[in-house]
């Protein structure tokens, strides 16, 4: 037996396994795609509803497909004050980086410059949740998403597009679409890997 019980490793494994259905990716991708669509047409304003109800939607799909296969786990709640402080500090750092980049390569007073660099801004903002998921689960796929979101952000910020928000719209739809597709592939693999068990085989009911 190991001399040490590696609790962080156990916690990471539990978290990673609880997220192996890919549904968070699908939901995040849908939000990003509809958010991108909103810059094209106000019809897509329902992205706000997706954000508000994302937790409930994912939960209801999980109740139907996930929990019967791998079980349900509830983690300790993170301190909301710490989480909020972390998010605000991270966003402030991103704004400072974008501000510095625009100062170096353009003019901070020019609104169109901020629009041009918006894909990188969103790409860097998304590093936050991906880094958080990576640190909790130890899964490299989140590192991949973070790198991709920044690389695509740089790419779409440097390309010249005709009208103002085109780069941002394309970026959000592309990264969102990638997440949706990636999440769906993970979800299908998950369904194939974990077949439904009969209730009496796993519930422990006597």
């Amino acid at each position, binding site marked *: 037996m190991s001399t*040490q019980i590696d609790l962080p490793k156990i916690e990471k494994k*539990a978290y990673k396994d609880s997220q192996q259905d890919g549904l968070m990716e699908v939901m995040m991708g849908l939000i990003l795609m509809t958010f991108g669509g909103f810059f094209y047409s106000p019809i897509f304003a329902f992205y706000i509803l997706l954000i508000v109800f994302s937790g409930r939607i994912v939960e209801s799909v999980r109740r139907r497909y996930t929990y019967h296969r791998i*079980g349900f*786990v509830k983690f300790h709640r993170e301190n909301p004050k710490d989480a909020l402080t972390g998010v605000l500090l991270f966003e402030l750092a991103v704004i400072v980086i974008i501000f510095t980049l625009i100062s170096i390569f353009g003019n901070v007073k020019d609104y169109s410059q901020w629009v041009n660099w918006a894909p990188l801004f969103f790409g860097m903002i998304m590093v936050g949740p991906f880094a958080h998921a990576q640190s909790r689960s130890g899964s490299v796929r989140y590192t991949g998403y973070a790198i991709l979101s920044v690389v695509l952000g740089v790419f779409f910020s440097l390309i010249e597009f005709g009208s103002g928000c085109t780069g941002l719209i394309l970026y959000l739809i592309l990264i969102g679409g990638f997440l949706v597709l990636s999440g769906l592939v993970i979800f299908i693999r998950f369904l194939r890997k974990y077949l439904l068990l009969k209730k009496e085989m796993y519930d422990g009911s006597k």
Partner: protein
Amino acid sequence: MAASDSGSKDLHPIAGIDRLIHEPARLMIMAYLYVVESADFLFLMRQTGLTAGNLSSHTSKLEAAGYIEVVKEFVDRKPHTMLRLTDAGRDAFQEYREGMMEVLR
């Protein structure tokens, strides 16, 4: 006599190890429940690799010792078993870890 006293003192931490938790399967269950708030029977089964019968038997022992709480509830009109560490179980597990570290030091 002095040597014997010294020996029993050295061995004291081993004698204090909680045998109920020390069993590998139960140790796994306790460790998983320690890092989460609660988990259902299936999740623990998947994580620990124990069969339903084994898990049920070990959780019964832990429940009898007051280390875990087993809550049977209905979700969508289906029975659902949730397990969580009690405060006593959390303390016992922490004590077990400290005791083992002491022994192995």
